[in-house]
């Protein structure tokens, strides 16, 4: 693989120059993360910690959910805000075609463009999830039951959930490059709410425990499914297909 660093950094810089999209996505993530954390804290965590013998497993579940959703939002909102926009702009202005005429491999361009959208979202999501973990622990848990964190909680939020979105970012960019960026956008618009709703439903219905290994495994499973779709579609990503898609 050639050095894709310049493409990633340049794409991130250019995405961040669209100030409206950056500010909107940060505000959306912030409002949603604070809203979710407050809802869980006021409705479930505060009453539970106030009880004589708080149920630690339930507290772990709530904390896991807050971190998981916050992280998903960070990555998901970012993907939603930038993938379609940057792909459309770069295709219509001849930036993609110019890159294809360089010695770079198509795969390198695709991976770099996917990472350029995924990485800032990952950082935002993980920072917010980390802040939530620390803040909730120090406000609610440390005074009574001590610092609460499990390895599965950390793995689900900081590894498995972002992995789903990494695979989704690769899929969206693959479809957007080889076909129409709008199709990639439709995929993310459908999959983002579907994945969040599915996981929350499985937790609420006690099929999965958000603080256990089963939840981590379920997330890794979803990432694997999306990853397999990406691997199957990847041979379709050729210079010719991308160039011909520019005409449509």
């Amino acid at each position, binding site marked *: 693989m050639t*050095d894709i*660093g*310049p*493409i990633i950094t*340049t794409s991130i*810089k*250019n995405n961040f*120059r669209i100030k409206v999209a950056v500010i909107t996505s940060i505000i959306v993530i912030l409002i949603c993360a604070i809203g979710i954390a407050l809802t869980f804290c006021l409705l479930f965590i505060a009453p539970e910690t106030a009880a004589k013998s708080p149920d630690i497993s339930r507290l772990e579940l709530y904390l896991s959910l807050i971190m998981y959703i916050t992280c998903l939002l960070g990555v998901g909102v970012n993907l939603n805000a930038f993938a379609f926009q940057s792909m459309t702009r770069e295709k*219509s*202005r*001849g*930036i*993609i*075609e*110019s*890159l*294809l*005429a*360089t*010695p*770079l*491999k198509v795969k390198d361009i695709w991976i770099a463009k996917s990472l350029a959208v995924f990485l800032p979202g990952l950082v935002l999501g993980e920072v917010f999830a980390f802040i939530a973990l620390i803040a909730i622990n120090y406000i609610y848990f440390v005074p009574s039951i001590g610092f609460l964190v499990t390895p599965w909680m950390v793995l689900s939020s900081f590894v498995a959930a972002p992995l789903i979105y990494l695979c989704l970012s690769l899929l969206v960019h693959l479809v957007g490059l080889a076909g129409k960026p709008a199709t990639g956008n439709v995929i993310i618009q459908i999959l983002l709410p579907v994945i969040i709703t599915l996981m929350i439903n499985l937790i609420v219905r006690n099929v999965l425990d958000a603080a256990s290994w089963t939840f981590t495994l379920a997330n890794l499973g979803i990432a694997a499914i999306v990853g397999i779709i990406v691997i199957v579609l990847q041979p379709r990503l050729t*210079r*010719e297909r991308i*160039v*011909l898609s520019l005409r449509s």
Partner: protein
Amino acid sequence: MSSAISIESVKKVLGNREVLKGISFTVEKGDIFGYLGPNGAGKTTTIRILLGLLQVSSGKAYILGQDINLSETRRKVGFLLDLDGLYDNMTAEENLEYYCRIYGVLKAKERIDKLLEMVGLEDRAKDKAGTYSRGMRQRLALARAMVHDPEVLILDEPTSGVDPSGQIEVRQIMLDVAHKENKTVFLSSHNLDEVQRICNRIALIDRGEIKLYGELESLRRGMGGSVVVIELARDIPESLLDELKSLPHLGLQEKKDKSLIFSPQAGTEVSDIISLLAGRGVKIEEATRKEASLEEIYSSILKEVEPS
């Protein structure tokens, strides 16, 4: 020694349409090669094949004797496509730096400064490309095409949409690149005047077929390009006109007032026509040989293939 560009019987089918119908031509090292043709003729498809953006359906295409799809070959080619592909939000320097990093150019800063000076944008180096005029953007895109010091430059209508003074600047840069930096330039253009001014060889493509190909000067001569205009002192009788028309080597094309316009066959000189007319008692005021312009060649070729 291999040619700079070699296209052998290349066909390209897109959907149900045969866009290129077995075209062949070569561009020698150091050439400024003009690639002409009307819209939809197949010029951009040819360029995309040369840049490895499209694959040939059949035939072969080489650059510097190498497969165009090799990364090593791409490093030897600079390009300017119909859309310049510049980042509007980045300065001229940043745009060039980006491509320097992609091509792994050493001493990038020096190279960028040299190129910006060459295209006359050194004063606007810190300005964003989005603030540039079309002509300045094309000059910047030309600089970008040369960041890695390529041996071959493939340019798709570099002066399209550029104002006349911008066209002169872009044209001068192309000439400097070809002559001072010893590069091969493949120039696709609609602008016949531009091609006539700077190209030494041309190919004319229409509906996916090469209609004309070769050195511009020899094409002008060989295409019956040279026209002889004889100004007469007074009108000639119809019988003499019929006689002149019956002599194919003279190639009498038309009579306009007191002028006779000949397109003589190879081997027939102006003096032959003058002697013949003088022998018939015709008084001649002036005789001039006029070279056919590229526009005339272009029009005559395209007229020949016009559907009836």
